[in-house]
């Protein structure tokens, strides 16, 4: 189809348009409507006409879907009042129109500090809205491939979704390395050690741990292929699935809770050549997972 398009290099709106069937995207509350953050201008900070998130409806393989994409180039994708409310509105709309899936192209450092209180509350509102949609049997799918990663509150929201898809360049965690370094020093977490950052928060580690369900190359069509495969693939939370998750997370703590390095964890779970993981591409990682790793989740 397309010649290779880097997901990471596209902006939020381009990602949405390229991911969906050609010409099918209809944006809601787009830039022309200028629904902006009133708080940023009070602080003398530039605002964006879409408050850093693109939302709307469209078709994927001819099936109706809802979609949101955070713009990492605007305030790091931070969640403020309007930004968060657009996500909540889209998820509530899903309950009305029952799309084949809701896709969230997450790229965010979490709560936007300039509107921190509103952002914090909004994150919990998005979590509850995600879980409402999930409980209704409509799959919520997180697609994570932007350069800014998926951190803080967005990292929590991601793990409430039915499915998490990451590129091997993407990152997901709670606190970013810079926050940990500024709190406990460079000995705790050297945020400039790129290899360490990737081993700790990157897509490959998350995939080998089972924290993301799909690992793809940084390629728009690779994301699209997985998105199509996940249409209608709901994973409703049940008491049994939560008990299973509890057992898995308990086992993870007892088995690898003392490991200091991702490579030790991978080795523990059966990766015979942990030192070579960094050089593998997504396809090799997937093969490794299928052949060696004994199921962490």
């Amino acid at each position: 189809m397309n010649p290779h398009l880097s997901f990471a290099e596209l902006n939020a709106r381009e990602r949405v348009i390229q991911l969906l069937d050609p010409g099918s995207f209809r944006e809601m509350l787009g830039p022309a409507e200028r629904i902006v953050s009133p708080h940023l201008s009070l602080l003398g900070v530039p605002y964006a006409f879409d408050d850093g998130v693109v939302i709307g409806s469209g078709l994927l393989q001819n099936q109706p879907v809802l979609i949101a994409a955070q713009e990492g180039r605007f305030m790091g994708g931070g969640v403020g009042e309007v930004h968060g409310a657009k996500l909540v509105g889209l998820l509530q709309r899903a309950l009305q129109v029952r799309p084949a899936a809701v896709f969230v192209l997450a790229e965010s450092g979490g709560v936007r500090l300039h509107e921190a209180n509103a952002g914090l509350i909004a994150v919990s509102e998005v979590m509850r809205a995600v879980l409402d949609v999930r409980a209704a049997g409509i799959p919520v799918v997180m697609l994570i491939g932007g350069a800014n990663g998926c951190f803080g509150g967005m990292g929590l929201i991601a793990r409430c979704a039915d499915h998490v898809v990451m590129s091997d360049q993407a990152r997901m965690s709670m606190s970013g390395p810079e926050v940990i370094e500024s709190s406990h020093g460079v000995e705790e977490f050297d945020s400039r050690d790129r290899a360490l950052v990737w081993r700790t928060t990157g897509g490959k580690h998350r995939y080998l741990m089972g924290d993301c369900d799909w690992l793809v190359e940084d390629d728009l069509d690779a994301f699209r292929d997985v998105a199509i495969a996940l249409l209608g693939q709901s994973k409703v939370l049940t008491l049994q699935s939560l008990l299973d998750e509890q057992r898995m997370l308990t086992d993870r703590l007892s088995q690898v809770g003392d490991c200091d390095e991702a490579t030790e964890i991978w080795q523990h779970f059966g990766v015979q050549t942990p030192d070579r993981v960094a050089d593998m591409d997504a396809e090799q990682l997937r093969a490794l997972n299928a052949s060696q790793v004994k199921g962490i989740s």
Partner: protein
Amino acid sequence: MNWQALSLALFGELHAIARTGDVIHGTAQLGPELTIAVVGTADHAAIGVETALAQAQFVLDTVVNHPGRPILLLVDTQGQRLRRRDELLGLNRYMAHLGCCVDFARRSGHRVVGLVYDQALSGGFITSGLMADACYALPEAEIRVMRIPAMSRVTKISEDLLEALSLTNPVFAPGVANYVAMGGIQALWSGDLKQDLLDALAATNTVDARATLGAERGGRALAARVVQQVLVA
């Protein structure tokens, strides 16, 4: 207020709340026929993988063994634990799991009330108190993401401007009153705490109405309107 004093104020002697590490957990009697499950953290705990997992276990045990029993989530946290090891193990997954368990309990017919009884900083209570049917706070509680001097350093906005704006705009400055104005905190408990809890349990509402509340109170004018605009777009 520490957790022992709070337990006494809420339940008198009629409770069996204990502490294991940073987690407090147990049950209390609100009446002859009314037992409540209580779980939370103490002493400004940092929420790490163990703390999140232990709270999730307690919530799941309550759902399994005591269907319908109301749950009180007690919040006192300095925020998520800022350690590389917790991130390596997937802290966001552990915390989100706690949030999913609280949410599941609500859906399964448990009334869930949160109470910030000391401090709630940053992401530490997103997956506990803020996932309850409603979250309350004591008037002397502290809720914030970041203090103004630190916020000034990160955002490069002068402290003077931030201080001045914080007098009229609740959107970024620390303070429990700001969270009430924005609808994130339902109300403050300042009278008879046990009665406040009983009233909260009677009033719980499984629909998330916080954005509407924020608009009615004038602290969050846009969120509810934007949600509505998306619904009719």
